[in-house]
């Protein structure tokens, strides 16, 4: 069974100009351990597709099954819990909690899951070491560079050992060196922890490192390789 299975997913937004079909009948599946990039021009539906896979947005039609569980059928409350237990998120703008240190940010999801303080700090430190930021564990986000913040965000996404990580243009705000470092780290974690990564991106450096590429145009997959 595929880790993620999409069947004829359609998402239509209503606007004053009329209906906009952001995702137009996409069917695809993602296996465990994939390192996949969803690419395409702006407005092609990359983010909408990731939102739907991540349970942040409900499709108008079609099913999204994660390990056989149809997430569109879950109630809002259950969906929040599903995200907490199964999905890691990395955002374009890092979105760390400014009042928490790198260690606390990394451990935050484990805290939400009710993991003991000792256990979550050990896991958070392990991940900060993996992303090369153990020495910055007690720094707050405003004391870190953009690249460092995004590495903390990756550590946070992986802290709870999610079934997969969704990353929306994770390198969009990073310079070349930070991008390379981040990609090395994610590729390494993908290998080491067998974590599934799905990116949306139009950054050629990310596309070069992806092992699978889905090309989207006008809400449809036009190429898969």
């Amino acid at each position, binding site marked *: 069974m595929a880790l993620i299975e999409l069947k004829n997913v359609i998402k239509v937004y209503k606007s004053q100009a009329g209906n906009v079909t952001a995702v137009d009948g996409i069917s695809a599946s993602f296996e465990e351990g994939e390192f996949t990039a969803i690419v395409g021009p702006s407005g092609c539906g990359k*983010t909408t597709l990731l939102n739907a896979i991540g349970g942040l947005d409900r499709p108008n039609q079609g099913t999204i099954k994660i390990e056989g569980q149809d997430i569109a059928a879950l109630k809002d409350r259950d969906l929040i819990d599903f995200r*907490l237990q199964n999905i890691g998120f990395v955002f374009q703008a890092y979105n760390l909690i400014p009042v928490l240190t790198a260690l606390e940010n990394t451990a935050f999801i484990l805290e939400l899951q009710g993991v003991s303080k000792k256990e979550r700090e050990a896991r958070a430190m392990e991940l900060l070491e993996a992303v090369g930021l153990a020495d910055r564990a007690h720094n707050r986000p405003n004391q870190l560079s953009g690249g460092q913040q995004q590495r903390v965000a990756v550590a946070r996404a992986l802290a709870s050992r999610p079934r997969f990580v969704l990353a*929306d243009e994770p390198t969009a705000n990073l310079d070349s060196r930070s991008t390379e470092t981040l990609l090395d780290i994610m590729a390494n974690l993908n290998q080491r922890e067998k974590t599934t990564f799905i990116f*949306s991106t139009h950054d050629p450096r990310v596309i070069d490192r992806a092992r699978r590429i889905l090309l989207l145009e006008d809400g449809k997959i036009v190429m898969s390789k």
Partner: protein
Amino acid sequence: MAWRNIWRSPWRSAVVIGAMALGVWAGIFMMGWATGLNDSRTVSMLDDNVGHGRLLSGSFDESQEISAPLPALPLFLETLSTDTTVTAFAPRIVIQAMAQSGSGAAPVMIYGIYPNAEQSVFSSARKIPEGRFLEDLFADEVVIGQELAKRLEVGVDDRLVLTFQDVEGDPHTALFYVVGLYDGASNMLEETLLYAPALNMAQQTGLLDSSAMASLSGSPPAFPVAHEVCFRVQDPYAMKPTLERLSIQDGLRLEQVEQRSTIHSLETLAFISTPIVIKDWRSISPELAYADNVMAQSLLLFMTIILLAMAFGILNTMLMAILERTRELGMLMAIGMNRRRIFSLIVLETILLSLAGLPIGLLLGHGTLVLTSQTGITFESVEQGLAEFGMDATIYPVTVPEFYLPIAALVFVLAFLSALYPARKALKLNPIESMRVL
């Protein structure tokens, strides 16, 4: 995390905490000041004229009939004099009358008093700025209040005509000389109450007949007749045991009257078998008791209004905080923070923000009250107005620790209520719209 969130905007939070501290300080100070004002007025009125307790016959209490003196007076005077909690007592004859001078007339209440006893209980009998107090129990002399003297345009050594009813209900007019003016705690009382010698009034009203009067010429009892006996106790706020002892004494007396009923005429029996009425100052002067009772409630209401205004400020601050953190709240929801946790976070932040100012305000308020309770606060500009209500121009606020816990609870409840709307706003956020990305 909630505590750290408060300090994202240190200045804004400091202003809110400072405002809360200031509001609590002002409220506490007002409470201490108002309680001090009320206590001052109560003590002043009790000392001046009301006394702490009073005994009177049931029929006199109902009708103010001059012919209903207190039965078994010696028995009760002995009880009072042996009671260790009673510090002084003063028997009085009470007569409603009309006072006339060459310039006018005024309705008055004559207190037929035994001077030494009266002075031991009431301060108004001791404060005689002009002339002297009464000395002779039979003299045609009166001491009147300064306000009544002004109204009737009389002074020391002037004459005053008093018209009143005797025990038969017949009108009686007598001429008296003003020998002194007293300074009462209240202008209203100064205008209506005057002192005359007890035995003179007893004779003129017929409370003591000629044979009784003749018997007084030998070795008279100290207090042969009275309508009421006023008394002072050590603590006017703890006089229940004293009242109970007096009540038991009256019960025993009535039992004895019943056993010996055959030896009395019906008229005498009716008189001596009248139960006495025992009053504490709360029932003598219901307005003082009322002020005392409603004071706490009024002060808490006042505090609630202050804190309610503060709550709106806190609500506004939290709304701004939610608005500024829309993106972050959306992210928290996206990564799996459920509604209950978001709600708890906002409520906790609001409560912490509100409670942070509370101890500062309480400490400042308490400190101010401790200081001013020693120095007092003088309101010279309204001295006369305060005197009208029997109060001194210098008010001594008192500390009010009994209110601190209710105030803390009030702040907590209002903080919780003011958190509800911002929390509801936060819960309505949509993660995608809030973040605008993923």
